[in-house]
């Protein structure tokens, strides 16, 4: 096996490296991508021109320079981003130091490793498919360097690679399902793996929900075990904002307390698969009555996880849609829900006073204010005009155009001004039912904000002023609301596109559930379902061994069955059987012994068999070499061979 690589192997590996590195380029600093591209081109040139590789000293200089660059770029040499950057540079340089097969193998192994680093950033189906193609190609390169001579075409390499990988798939599946999963991380997860993602925050100021609503990213998906409620009743509760400074609403420090509630209808059971959003809260239908393991519920019914949600998580929930709660809300909380910054929005305060004067009860004031939003000419838009210092005044009396954050904020301010405790709740409203996968998709575009007011004897009551302005938004979602400024992708007009989109999302959902969401819990649940309750690592290891063993046997059977030598000529088959019989009698045929010589030798040592053996051999030679007619003669030959047993 020649230790040196030929041009084709070098180009193959260079291309493989380029393919694996390509997805990293958008995340790498431009100078580093440029450097790596240069290294790859350099190697290609050297290989084609059959020039010597650069001296080691030069490579060391480049390594030092690149490492320093990475350090200045990221402030560290470790962690995800810096680590990947460094690995990419090192691989490019290893390519320039690749002299022989051993170097090439190291490069191949590290290329596999580079594939896995791509998964740190994306684990979507397209990424998976692209990386599978890369692995196929890299494996083809590994096979290539083991060939005797470079084959004429790349096909045998790619075919063998596909064959090997295809045969590896059953083993991969068994290991994926049964390999004992450990809850990570084993060591500290580098801080930079937490991606910045769009989503709600725990503050709200004009435009903040609008920004979120312009994204079609999935916030979470829901599978209902009970019938799916009407869209307009699906308020997914998120951060609850109490504090207002005239411009921004904020969530206070969380208070945890068991709150009493009265449910007035059947519960809704469902499970939520939440996309990572980097924040601590979970979403559930208003009003959540269970708490997923490991999370807490606040006194305003937010579900809070102790850690930010940085990985997709799935939890089972039960909620009530018709309820009362908070009638016994402590006084300090109610006071907090009445606070308004002094010196803002004089016209709103005036309106509140007049409402208070005209209506006796708080409930009547709420109703009147709500009716006002429906009566006056408010418009619902994603592109409202900018507002000045007295935002609520300007919104209520001048612009009258806004998105849900404007309505909920204005309503809450008005209520507080009228002496009714009020707060803003952000979250999502509705969602898109996907009939293909039978689940609900809640997107960032479904982000919503509403108001809760506290009424004596009834506790906290939800009031959604947006519903008064744009009922369509509440009932059928943003796309149906004919809102100015809704991007094209969110409009549901095109039936074919919509169906494609839903099919794709259904696929993505199954992928999330079964591939990406295959967690230790999921594994345990699956094993329980096949009757392995509380599987210890011992049973799991046993099962794993047995299953892999079985799979290997099956693969071995299919791989090795072509090794059997098929004898097509019945005459030869009979002759071989005849030789085997004689061998059993201690008269094995010599490798170089022809039939007649063999027969003579057998006859000499076993005169009792002589005549039969001679007859047989004469007939055999006649049939095989003498052009004797087959048919009846073959049957006779067979009979002669069988008689030998006697």
């Amino acid at each position, binding site marked *: 096996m020649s230790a040196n690589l030929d041009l084709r192997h070098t180009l193959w590996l260079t291309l493989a490296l380029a393919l694996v590195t390509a997805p990293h380029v958008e995340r790498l600093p431009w100078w580093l991508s440029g450097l790596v591209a240069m290294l790859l081109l350099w190697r290609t040139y050297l290989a084609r021109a059959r020039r010597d590789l650069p001296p080691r000293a030069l490579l060391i200089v480049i390594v030092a320079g690149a490492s320093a660059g990475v350090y200045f770029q990221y402030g560290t040499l470790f962690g995800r981003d810096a680590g990947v950057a460094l690995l990419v540079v090192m691989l490019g340089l290893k390519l320039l130091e690749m002299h022989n*097969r051993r170097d090439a*193998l190291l490069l191949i192994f590290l290329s596999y490793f580079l594939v896995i680093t791509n998964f740190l950033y994306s684990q979507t189906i397209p990424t998976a498919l692209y990386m599978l193609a890369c692995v196929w190609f890299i494996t083809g390169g590994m096979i290539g360097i083991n*060939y005797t001579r470079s084959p004429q075409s790349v096909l045998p390499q790619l075919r063998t690679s596909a064959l090997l990988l295809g045969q590896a798939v059953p083993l991969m599946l068994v290991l994926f399902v049964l390999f004992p999963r450990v809850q990570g991380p084993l060591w500290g997860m580098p801080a930079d793996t937490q991606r910045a993602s769009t989503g709600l925050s725990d503050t709200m100021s004009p435009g903040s929900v609008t920004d979120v609503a312009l994204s079609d990213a999935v916030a979470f998906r829901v599978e209902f075990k009970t019938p799916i409620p009407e869209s307009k009743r699906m308020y997914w509760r998120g951060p609850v904002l109490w504090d207002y400074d005239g411009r921004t609403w904020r969530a206070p420090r969380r208070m945890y307390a068991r709150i009493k509630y009265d449910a007035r209808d059947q519960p809704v059971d469902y499970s939520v698969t939440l996309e990572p959003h980097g924040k601590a809260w979970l979403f559930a239908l208003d009003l959540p009555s269970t708490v997923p393991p490991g999370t807490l519920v606040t006194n305003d019914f937010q579900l809070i996880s102790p850690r930010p949600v940085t990985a997709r998580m799935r939890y089972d929930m039960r909620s009530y849609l018709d309820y009362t709660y908070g009638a016994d809300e402590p006084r300090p909380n109610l006071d907090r829900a009445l606070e308004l910054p002094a010196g803002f929005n004089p016209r709103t305060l005036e309106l509140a006073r007049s409402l208070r004067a005209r209506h006796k009860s708080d409930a009547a004031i709420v109703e009147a204010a709500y009716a006002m939003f429906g009566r006056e000419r408010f418009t619902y838009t994603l592109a409202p005009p900018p507002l000045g210092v007295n935002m609520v005044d300007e919104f209520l009396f001048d612009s009258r155009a806004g998105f849900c954050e404007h309505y909920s904020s204005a309503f809450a301010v008005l209520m507080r001004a009228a002496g009714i405790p009020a707060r803003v709740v952000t979250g999502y409203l509705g969602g898109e039912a996907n009939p293909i996968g039978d689940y609900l998709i809640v997107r960032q575009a479904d982000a919503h904000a509403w108001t809760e007011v506290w009424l004596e004897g009834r506790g906290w009551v939800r009031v959604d002023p947006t519903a008064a302005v744009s009922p369509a938004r509440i009932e059928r979602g943003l796309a149906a609301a004919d809102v100015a400024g809704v991007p094209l992708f969110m409009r549901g007009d095109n039936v074919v596109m919509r169906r494609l989109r839903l099919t794709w999302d259904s696929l993505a959902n199954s992928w999330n559930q079964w591939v990406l969401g295959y967690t230790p819990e999921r594994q345990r649940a699956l094993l329980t379902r096949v009757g392995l309750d509380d599987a210890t690592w011992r049973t799991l290891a046993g099962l794993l061994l047995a299953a892999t063993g079985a799979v290997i046997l099956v693969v071995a059977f299919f791989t090795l069955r072509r090794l059997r030598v098929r004898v097509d000529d019945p005459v030869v088959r009979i002759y071989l059987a005849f030789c085997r019989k004689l061998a059993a009698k201690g008269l094995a045929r010599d490798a170089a012994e022809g039939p007649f010589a063999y027969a003579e030798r057998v006859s000499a040592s076993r005169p009792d068999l002589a005549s039969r053996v001679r007859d047989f051999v004469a007939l055999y030679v006649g049939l095989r070499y003498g052009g004797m007619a087959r048919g009846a003669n073959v049957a006779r030959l067979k009979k002669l061979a069988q008689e030998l047993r006697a």
Partner: protein
Amino acid sequence: MQLLRPFTTWLFRLHGPERGEVVLVQRRIFILPSKAGVMFAAVLLLMLTGSINYALSLGFILTFLLGGLAVVAMLHTFRNLAGLRVTAGKAEPVFAGDVARFPIALRNPTRTPRFGLVVARDETDHDIVDVPAEGASVATAAVPAERRGLLYPGRLTLYTRYPVALYRGWSYVDLDTHCVVYPRPAPAGVPLPPLAAGGAEGSGHGEGHDDFYGLRQYHPGDSPRHIAWKAAAREQGLLTKQFTGYAPAELRLSLDSAPPHLPLEDKISRLTRWVLDADAAGIAYALSLPNASIDAATGVAHRERCLHALALV
């Protein structure tokens, strides 16, 4: 190692040379991870740890896929050897100090082609062959020929790293074959011993064959250097040049022809040199040795016969 010998004998079936065709049955094939395979395992372990730490489902999938690949590759390495039929061909004689090349025929009776097979005594000098489905190829095992006589290749290793370099699959074959190793010729320059004319009288000089006498029809066995190539170029057919001299002059070589003070091996070396020189000069020579007596003649077959006898003194 001494203690292990019975074990290795059993394991590797070291029962001495086997006659005829050796079939690589499952029992004779050994597979171990190569150095690259060990490195690959280390990389897989690293990938597994990373996948656990970052809870990367696709990382698990890739790791397990490559793990599966490693297992499957072992089957393919095995398949690449299993069922091959190995026979030794006839090795061409060589002179001591050269490398003997044993042709080893690899016959593949199955419908799976084999790739990247090497037959070698050690792993330094080798030749890689592919064997087509239901076909055969000849690999060459190089064995240094150090001493004259019969050279047995001994235990040869038939190995492969196909399809990926993660494993080395091999089988030991000890084929009953040999190569004749001619003695190493002494350095050129020592004049030939005197010729004997007509068998009895000495001729005195060895130059007689340089006097050109005429041409005659070519007979097979004539030395190529006596062919009249110019005549052949003129399309007169192959003619052989004839020389005057003491016509049936011949050279009688025996161990006594060499200076008596030389050790036996040196005498044999010198005789070998003379055989070659006489053959080159087209002089008929006879050889008498303790183990053989060969009458005077010329030609390639005669030379080989003499060298063979010298190899086996």
